[in-house]
């Protein structure tokens, strides 16, 4: 069991709960001294991120015996290094190298206790109304409306200290973009974020070392543990077991940080919650032979570009709150279906996002690194992808569709326009070849030359989703409207896999709310 747990007793109506003030009681590979672990639980939850942690807490406080299995390591906040390259190794799926089969889309996901909530940028949006409308219209999900989900949103917003950025959290790079949006007459708003007393280090993507980000690592997981939930890290679930159409538990392996197989593990449980994320959840289900043919289909991921530009004045994009403001002018699909988020970044990322040219142009670009600022584009992509387990490895089959390519170009043009209105000297396009824009009249000519082909755009996905879609029609959904996996009793999905369509906005609050909704329906 991990060390340095500080706790204190709290009286509730029915029990004395041990508040855990610092650290987490986690069984790690180094704690396992036997070659085979055999455990039982009322509920076994696969994954400890946004979906897994919320369901763990909500079910544990109901009095259920909850066991959380996390494939990644337990890394206490004090061990975060604020070095992005090192953090990719310790905190991210496939050590930061997870990508689609074309290799032009990095899919970044957390793989540690707390999951992606540990390494995200804290951005907190409720599900937009028009997204609920799509879910109602296309998937029969009549229970999901802004009004019906409001209590769930309010609950997680309160629990996670979600508030709008104050003036001190609008860093220099965001202030500059406010200038540009004002000049264009575009709507721009401060983000809401799940953070307490932001220390303005700019290292969100490497984990919040001083525990200001209200990730699952410092909120729902210690709360679940306080109510008796057990948490195991380094535990990779191979398959969900079942007999006669009912789930019976899971089987897997305990694997240490060096890849050494330490022990086998089997868990007997009548309820299994899949919360391993939109890539791993369908992979585990496919390995288990569970669910219908929709498992793994309908994958979407908000393919993003980071559009960098050079300004005459110093910006220091690594200083201050990483995410300050966003443009919502084009959010509704009728207006374009994309948003622009103003994001900071560090020096290693800066040399990877753009192609400033070879040799001298690159040196001149990096000499001006402190003058760079960037905008992240997010689009409402169609669910055209698929996750497939191929016997010995997973595949993320996702190509930017021709239906979505115009949205990508529209978002790129808007980002360039915003940079120029904010005073940028040169905007570098996120392409494999050097392409840049220095004036508004160049935008269409340069960007319309781009074609939708592999390895042409440099794209990143921070929001994989939709691979076990919920809905009322088994022909186009993997779960029912309450997250129950079709074809087997006792298995629920409670992560971003559920999302029937992409959200446009950052999905963490939607996932928290849906996980809470699903947990409320598990007896």
């Amino acid at each position, binding site marked *: 069991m991990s060390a340095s747990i500080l706790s204190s007793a709290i009286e509730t109506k029915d029990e004395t709960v041990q508040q855990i003030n610092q650290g987490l009681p986690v069984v790690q590979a180094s704690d396992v001294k036997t070659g085979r672990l055999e455990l039982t639980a009322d509920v076994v939850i696969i994954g400890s991120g946004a979906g897994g942690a919320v369901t763990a807490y909500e079910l544990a406080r109901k009095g259920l015996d909850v066991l959380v299995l996390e494939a990644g390591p337990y890394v206490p906040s004090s061990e975060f290094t604020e070095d992005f390259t090192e953090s990719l190794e310790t905190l991210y799926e496939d050590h930061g190298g997870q990508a689609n089969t074309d290799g032009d889309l*990095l899919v970044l996901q957390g793989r540690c206790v707390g999951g992606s909530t540990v390494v995200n940028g804290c951005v907190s949006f409720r599900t937009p109304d028009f997204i609920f409308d799509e879910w109602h219209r296309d998937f029969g999900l009549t229970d999901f409306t802004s009004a019906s989900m409001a209590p769930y949103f309010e609950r997680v917003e309160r629990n996670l200290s979600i508030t709008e950025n104050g003036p001190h959290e609008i860093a220099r790079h965001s202030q500059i973009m406010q200038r540009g949006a004002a000049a264009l007459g575009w709507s721009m708003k401060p983000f809401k974020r799940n953070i307490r007393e932001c220390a303005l280090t700019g290292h969100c993507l490497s984990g919040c070392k001083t525990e200001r980000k209200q990730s699952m690592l410092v909120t729902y997981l210690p709360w679940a543990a306080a109510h008796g939930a057990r948490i195991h890290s380094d535990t990779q679930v191979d398959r969900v077991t079942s007999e006669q159409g009912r789930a019976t538990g899971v089987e897997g392996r305990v694997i240490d940080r060096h890849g050494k197989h330490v022990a086998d593990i089997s868990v007997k449980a009548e309820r299994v919650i899949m919360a391993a994320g939109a890539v791993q959840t369908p992979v585990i289900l496919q390995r288990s032979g569970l669910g219908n043919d929709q498992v793994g289909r309908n994958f979407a991921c908000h393919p993003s570009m980071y559009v960098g530009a050079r300004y005459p004045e110093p910006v220091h994009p690594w200083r201050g709150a990483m995410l300050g403001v966003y443009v919502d002018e084009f959010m509704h699909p009728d207006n374009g279906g994309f948003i622009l988020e103003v994001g900071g970044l560090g020096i290693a990322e800066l040399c990877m996002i753009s192609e400033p040219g070879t040799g001298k142009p690159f040196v001149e670009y990096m000499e001006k690194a402190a003058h760079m600022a960037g905008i992240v584009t997010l689009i409402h992509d169609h669910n055209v992808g698929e996750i497939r387990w191929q016997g010995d490895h997973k595949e993320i089959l996702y190509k930017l569709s021709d239906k979505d390519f115009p949205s990508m170009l529209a978002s790129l043009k808007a980002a360039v326009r915003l940079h120029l209105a904010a005073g940028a000297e040169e905007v570098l396009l996120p392409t494999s070849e050097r392409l840049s824009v220095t004036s508004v009249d160049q935008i269409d000519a340069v960007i319309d030359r781009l074609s939708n082909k592999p390895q042409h755009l440099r794209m990143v996905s921070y929001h994989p989703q939709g691979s076990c879609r919920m809905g009322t029609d088994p022909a186009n959904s993997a779960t029912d409207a309450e997250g129950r996996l079709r074809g087997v009793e006792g298995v629920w999905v409670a992560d971003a896999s559920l999302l029937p369509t992409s959200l446009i906005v950052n999905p963490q609050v939607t996932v928290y709310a849906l996980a809470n909704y699903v947990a409320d329906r598990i007896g």
Partner: protein
Amino acid sequence: MPTAKDTPPNQSDQAAARQVTAPLAAVTRRRFMKGILLGSAGLAVAAGGTFAVLRRSPVDQLPVPDGIQHLSQSEYHLFRRAIEVLLPLAGSALTPVSEVPVLANIDAMIGTLPAHIRKDVASGLMLFDNAAVVSGWHGRRFVDLEEADAVAYFDRWSRGSVIQRTMNTVIKQFVYVSYWRDPKTWPPVEFDGPVSDRWGIAYLGNAPLPEEADA
């Protein structure tokens, strides 16, 4: 020149290598090898011979420093030339390459790659070096190109086939990441690096348990 690392690959090397080769790692092996084979076949036809080293180079006779553990001789010289071409820092405000173990960092990163990706990287590097003989009709390998030709060669690959675009990105990222990950490169651009400990920021600990109405 700083010497190569003689310590086992660390986590940072591994992460940097995975990140740099992600485009290559995800491209299906069949597709990548098909691209390599097509490129090789084109070279062989154009050169009227086999794809074994098309042109000998003076650098083939040069030794590789003792500390280099994972790069082959030809790969070492390819990256040595790539560093010269990609990081012409003389006269700039940036930290001189001579103060940063860029080649040693590349060697360490290469050493952490899984075997199948390492094999693809080797094939891609060989293609990049040798294809210069016919691509652009330089008549010599990349390692022997003059600076202007080498820059043009990179730029042409950035606009080429999927494999060419991939290798252009992979080689550049190996060089750039190996340079910029060293803290000595940060002061000239005023990058702050890790700050929480330096600034003495207090730890907040876990959030208090919510006060539940039904508790």
